[in-house]
């Protein structure tokens, strides 16, 4: 469900991973995010991370079952959110 917020388009989702967003999935996520022009933020209880930076995502280290908000700003924000949500849903670690 994509919502318009003052900070940009937002999408909430819940991770369901066995081992969390460790190096491999974080690398794939960053790769996926870089295909879009929009700035994409990953927000969870631990803080915020630039979805295009594997290092940022890694250091955010969301729990394997964390509640996440994806926040996108830019011309292709909506497409970016949809594709990342799809990507995270299919992500197997």
């Amino acid at each position, binding site marked *: 469900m994509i919502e318009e917020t003052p900070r940009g388009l937002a999408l909430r989702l819940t991770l369901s991973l*066995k*081992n969390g967003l460790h*190096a491999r999935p974080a690398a794939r996520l960053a790769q996926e995010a870089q295909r879009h022009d929009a700035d994409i933020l990953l927000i969870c209880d631990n803080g915020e991370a630039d979805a295009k*930076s594997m290092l940022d995502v*890694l*250091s955010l*280290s969301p729990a394997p079952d964390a509640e996440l908000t994806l926040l996108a700003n830019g011309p292709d924000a909506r497409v970016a959110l949809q594709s990342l949500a799809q990507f995270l849903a299919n992500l197997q670690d």
Partner: protein
Amino acid sequence: MARAVLFGIPVSPGIAIGTVRFMHDMRQSEERHIPSEEIPQEQIALRAAAAGVRTALAQTMRNVPEELAEYRDVIAAQMELARDPKLLNAALARIERKGICAAWALDLTIEELCELFRGMDDPYLRDRAQDIRAVGLRIRECLAGVLPREADKGPSLLVAEDLSPADVMELDLKGVLGILTVEGGPTSHTAILSRGLRIPALVGITGLLETANENEPAIVDGLSGRVLLGPDAADLAHYTARRDEYSRWVQQTRRNACWPAEMCDGVRVRAQANLESPDELPGFAESGADGVGLYRTEFAYLKGELPTEEELFREYAAVVAKAAPQRVVFRTLDVGADKMLRSQASLKEPNPALGLRGIRFCLRHQGIFRTQLRALLRAGVAGNAALLLPMISGLGEVQSVRRILRELHEELQAQNLAHATGLPLGVMIETPAAVLICDVLARECDFLSIGTNDLIHYLMAIDRNNRHVAYLNEPLHPAVMRSLKRIIDAGHREGIGVSVCGELAADPCGLAILLGMGVDAVSAAPCFVPGIKHMIRQLRASTCQELAHSILMSTDVQTCRHMVREKLHQSLGPELAFHTTSLLGQSQP
């Protein structure tokens, strides 16, 4: 560079002559302030270097063979790091803000990120600092115009502070002739890995990093435990001759590797191989080993995520099928101490060697254990497999495993999956508790296996990583000798076989004593098996029995050492020098 000799602990036999190559770049990089008009060009240089690293990595990726698919993930993560906005933008901004050159800005950024990751609670994330550093080094080399690591500098001797299993996974070992490290002991990962790769190696070399210089010629004598830096012509001639002599001996033992390990007076034992991964199977086939005495199953678990039953099944079935009809003894997951799984590391045990490791961990985390056992039971139909439980300290643990095996058998039957029933079940004797109740354990099991490394550590109450107490690591200590005898006798009284799979089995002195005590099988790294069989064929069981008897009667370690050396010298002659003995003091005459 002047000629210098350093001493270390020989952990993998052989002699190597080459040039020194530091595993980690020790050189100080350029630290230069730049005028503002140079800023754009430094930024362009940094971007180009990062792009260059990505291209080089993509190239490497294409060359990764199919069977090493897991390396691709490591490389993919490195490629991602090489274009990470956090890393790159921070460095680019630094060039501009501080007016410094690209290499310096990169170093500062990498250092900052490494600090950040090293300070994290999660040990997995802490270890990622090493990936960031690795990528930083690559970009730096590219900036400095150094050729990438892949196009290497010919026969080299790798010098490092220490090597972790992760280091080795990422290392390009082509062209590495010898390994030298400052840290580590006879049972360190460097030791085990270098032996597996048949690369001469010395560990525990004090002053190595200070004395050695990159690209300097050097000689590694993995037989006597010496490194010669900047050797002169006479050294080179001497060592070239010795290297050739040794390699002739090795070739001879390998040619005869398939001959049985039968002593002069007709007593036959089994000489088996210790393996870590299916990659070692070619070496196993050449070694002439009588089966796999110890298959360590931890490697599949060291990659940050748990392997699936199918992955494990494929690995185990391949090994079993390859070794058939000979037996493969699989040691079930032995994590703990320095081989941490993520889920276990979160326990933060102050003393992991005495904590939840081996069978204790498996019985606590039964999900992980059951997955492995199911894979093993299924792989059992491909040939001749046996199970070995590590870190046993009581009968209850064996009974629990038997119960789990029965449940899994019913489960697999219900799912109609082919699996082996009644796989032989053995236990590792490596705790003092297990030694004292080995008669009870022998009645419950199909075989006993002695892990001498851990047994010595636990008997002597020493930490394997603590160099201050390394002097207590004494296999000839009466407590160790009596324990070995007690275990072997207990097994034989119950009519089951006893094997030894620790380093002691590969040591000529240890081997002679074990043979004298009547051990049924010894197991060592494949590279040692031909030499072990060759040595067994030169010994007499009666001589070994007398030797073992004298050793057991004596309480003085020095006397024992002289005795065993003398006996071996009589039986083996000058060939004794070709067997590395890392456990029984080299310095003795």
